[in-house]
């Protein structure tokens, strides 16, 4: 505890909490505002920047539930149906997958550059990640067009409905990630209250999650054939 003025009772009850969550109350030295000073009473603090990563974590759990609901619908309907018409997945999906996996690596490379204060290297890799992300979405669009050319539409059968819903919902979520990548690329860093590393970290959580989610969905689609 940095606070010399803090009353002894506070410490007593912090120990009393129990459970692994024992986050001590925000005690003055959050990340950017210059470390803990002893007198916390008598001045306002801006809310902890940790809230961004907390929010993205909870949002990811929520997004996971969304896709789990779709996936369980897929599994239930797949098993309950007598006439399941399979959809032949376009081969371009594999290329897209590789692109998306690659983008995760470039994102991490960018973040490593950032932590070693190499800002031009960071920008380069970050833009590369953004480009890969956009090309993944473009690749998904091509896959859709290929299916449409084969005469497979969203309402053709249940399998095709699921294919379009899965890829569509994932692409919408991924576009949110692309938006975040673009935001980081073009933000003016001076007057913002959240630091670049924090935004990059939060974005990376989301991006890796979308990456893993896609692999899961693809596996589901392949195995569900």
């Amino acid at each position, binding site marked *: 505890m940095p606070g010399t003025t803090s009353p002894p009772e506070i410490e007593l009850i912090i120990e009393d909490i129990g459970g692994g969550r024992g*986050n001590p109350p*925000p005690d003055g030295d959050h990340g950017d505002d210059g470390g803990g000073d002893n007198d916390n009473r008598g001045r306002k603090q801006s809310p902890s920047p940790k809230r961004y990563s907390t929010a*993205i974590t909870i949002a990811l759990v*929520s997004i996971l539930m969304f896709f789990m609901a779709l996936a369980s619908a897929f599994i239930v309907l797949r098993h309950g149906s007598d006439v399941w018409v399979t959809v032949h997945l376009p081969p371009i999906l594999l290329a897209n997958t590789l692109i998306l996996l690659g983008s995760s690596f470039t994102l991490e490379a960018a973040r490593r550059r950032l932590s070693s204060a190499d800002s031009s290297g960071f920008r380069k890799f970050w833009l590369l990640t953004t480009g890969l992300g956009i090309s993944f979405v473009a690749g998904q669009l091509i896959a859709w067009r290929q299916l449409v050319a084969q005469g497979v539409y969203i309402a053709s059968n249940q399998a095709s409905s699921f294919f379009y819903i899965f890829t569509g919902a994932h692409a919408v979520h991924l576009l949110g990630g692309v938006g975040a990548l673009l935001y980081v690329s073009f933000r003016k860093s001076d007057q913002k209250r959240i630091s670049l590393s924090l935004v990059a970290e939060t974005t990376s959580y989301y991006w890796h999650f979308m990456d893993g989610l896609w692999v899961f969905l693809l596996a589901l689609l392949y195995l569900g054939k």
Partner: protein
Amino acid sequence: MANDDSEADQPETPQPGFLARCVFSTDHKVIGLNYLWLALFSVFLGLAMSLLMRIHLVWPGVRLPFLSGSSLERYAALTTFHGSLMVFLVLTAAPQAGFGNYFLPLQIGAREMAFPKLNRLSFWATAASLLGLTIAFLAAPETGITFWIASVALFSFASLCNGINFSVTTIDLRARGMTLARLPLTVWAWFINAILSTLIFSILLAASVCLLSDRLLTTHFFPPLNFLAGQPAGFVVNFLPVLWQRLFWFFAQAEVYIAMLPCFGLTTHLLSTFSRKPVWMERLVVLALCGVGLFGFCVWGQHMFASGMNPFSPLVFSLLASSLGLPATILVISWLGTLWNARLQLNTSMLFASGFVSLFIAGGISGIFLAGHDLAAAAVSDEFITGHFHLVMGVAATFAILGALFFWFPKLFGRRLNELLGKIHFWLTFAGVYLVFMPMHWLGLLTHANLYSGSRIAAMVAPVRGFITIAAILLVIAQGLFLCNFLWSLFRGEKIEERNPWRATTLEWSVPSPPPAGDFGATDPVVYRGAYEFGVPGLAEDFVPQHLSPEEVAKAR
């Protein structure tokens, strides 16, 4: 996600206009109040709809607005409108989003929600969903259903954002010294409910997306034929009402838990404050609240796709008798333990809180008795189900909301609601709800027991139905009393000068009423103790507020 918030200490703008103050404000207090206004509007609209239904049921010949023409469809639409208004915009929005938005930051010592702009977005999405529901009701049935689903999807989205906002606020924005163990139980309930919302509403959103795609893109996620095949023959008269009903029940399943959880928190808080005693077994109550959330999630998740979404699957019975059994028992025991040997302050707020306990116990007991019954048979008598869940869920939750309103009104508006009118309103309502919904139970049992011939049942049923309808009309008139009290007190009510008229312990009572912008003035609040320190011996006052430092307490000795 990357939401830049307005800084708390922005320069004072000279008297912003009405739009800036109320409509586009990101202040959690304004947004919370807006939710409450929305709920107040919806509850009276919903009441009017229920009266139309009752009157139509008893006197089918009477010409009523919204019920002309093809009556079956209109009646189903009316039912759905009433249900969605009450469940979504009243029972979900008022206790969680309304009171939660206003008081969660105040009670944990935060100056604002974690993401104020996201908060504003949620509110306006909720308001838009109310508009959508109304359009769905007024539109032709086919478009109406599509509108309805879209509105529900919008509402789910709003609740998701809300849930994220609430949980992040509770996790990261607590004041110095506000450990988890010191959180008021209201905050615990809001927090657990927020997490439950983020999980459940995303499933709802997924389901609505599939349904919308079924309707707009002609996919077949929810094949209608499977559903109809499993229904009793009487249901296949008309496809449309069945679809309405199905959707309504389908969503209601999750909503039960979402609506009840914050009410548990509110009731516990009120009972403790007005018994002037600490919450009995506070830790266990927190665990029980977590249990309600967990059970709520598991039971519902299993229901979701596994049970084929039979709308009459054991909705309320299993809820009270099996899944909620253990945590509900803990809660009830804690409430009774808190009340035991207490010097009760029987004001209106306390009356409503005790009314909640009474309704909850009554519903719980009948739920346990009925859990063993064959539900496939019981499902035929849907009047029983109607009576049961209105009493347990709808009315009980409303009691908790009203109790909280009487409790927090001085903080919200700096005035007190009239106690005498409040008490008359309470007793009329308390008698009224039992008179309306208890006979419904009996009707349900009567029509499905094979003791009497059809004509005799019809002869017995008609007067009871008439009685229920008259009681319902009186009940709604009694709510007019509340509306008068509310509006009168808003402008003319007894002014409260002191900050803490109820002598309560939590942080919101340490600031002026109504709280200023930024809530806590120049200094951040610091918390030194748990939320329910009542009846501490050796002090002049019988309570110790959370923000009182040990030195100040020592001075008071």
